[in-house]
């Protein structure tokens, strides 16, 4: 049930955010500070999520095969690899290390 509550809230919230942008008159959200905050918010959240899902294990910080997988993904990004290759690299390196260890 909890999962369905989360799904419902997320679906409604995300849809309203999308719709808001199409409905409000241009200029309402065009204030520079609001724009800059909206651009920076995903940066902070994505960075936090990346770190947490790489080094977090429930309430503990751990360094395991995922760390190596993400390092490989970062290298693939630096080499301008396409999106799917980046994700695939992380998965393959993580799985490979676990198979070895």
């Amino acid at each position, binding site marked *: 049930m909890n999962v369905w509550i989360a799904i419902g809230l997320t679906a409604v919230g995300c849809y309203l955010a999308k719709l808001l942008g199409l409905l409000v008159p241009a200029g309402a959200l065009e204030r520079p500070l609001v724009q800059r905050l909206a651009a920076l918010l995903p940066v902070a959240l994505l960075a*936090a999520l990346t770190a947490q899902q790489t080094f977090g294990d429930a309430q503990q910080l751990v360094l395991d095969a995922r760390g190596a997988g993400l390092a490989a993904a970062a290298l693939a990004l630096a080499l301008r690899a396409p999106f799917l290759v980046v994700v695939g690299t992380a998965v393959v390196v993580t799985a490979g290390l676990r198979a070895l260890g």
Partner: protein
Amino acid sequence: MDDGGGDGPGTRVTGEPGRDTSSATSRVAKRDADVVRDALGVGIAVGLSGFAFGVTSAGAGLTLLQTCALSLLVFTGASQFALVGALAAGGNPYTAAAGAFFLGVRNAFYGLRLSQLLALPRAVRPFAAHWVIDETTAVTLPQPTRRAARIGFTVTGLTLYVLWNLTTLVGALGAEALGDTDAWGLDAASPAVFLALLAPMLKSTTERVTAALAVLLALGLLPVLPAGLPVLLSALAAPVVLFVTGRRKIATTVVTQGEERRR
């Protein structure tokens, strides 16, 4: 920008792109084909990563129906990954949904810019809204004409929506067949998706400092706060960095003005 309405009926977002090329010159038709090709490329590449979402969501313990409902109803990848990640970590549904929602807020700003470019009729907007995401915006914004923008938006949105949902289903079914998804390294897929979305955003020092501060907050708070809260609080990195850079900018203007006065 004008309120649109000047284009022919064939360019409506609900119309099928490419249908009305008979009236267009071959040069325009070729340009339409180029837009469609770009849109299909983005739509297919990202649509396939729905597979990673399906696997991740099933691995996080969501049922097949819940996983598919997320892709059908939420349809914005980062929020979906964030939600299942937070739920898997044991976060309560409200903090989990709040994190997913804050990630989805950026779509409102995409919508603002798209609405000027596409000039959609009011009745169409509630339907088009569901497709206002990173990829459709990325394809639509650089288009030179309203017609090209509408084709780009429609083809990218449609391709992505169909593929994202199909591959979510396949991924969720596949995860059940795979068994222990961690052994296949699939728990690394979600952070890699976040990293791939984040990388192009790190354009200047402001973005990099924000990201670094957010990482420190998220990891520092992880052992001491309930699941879900550390990520939410790390969002504070954005206003903090804006506040500090804003003050510094004011300080430097004051200093330069002072120096100019001394001359």
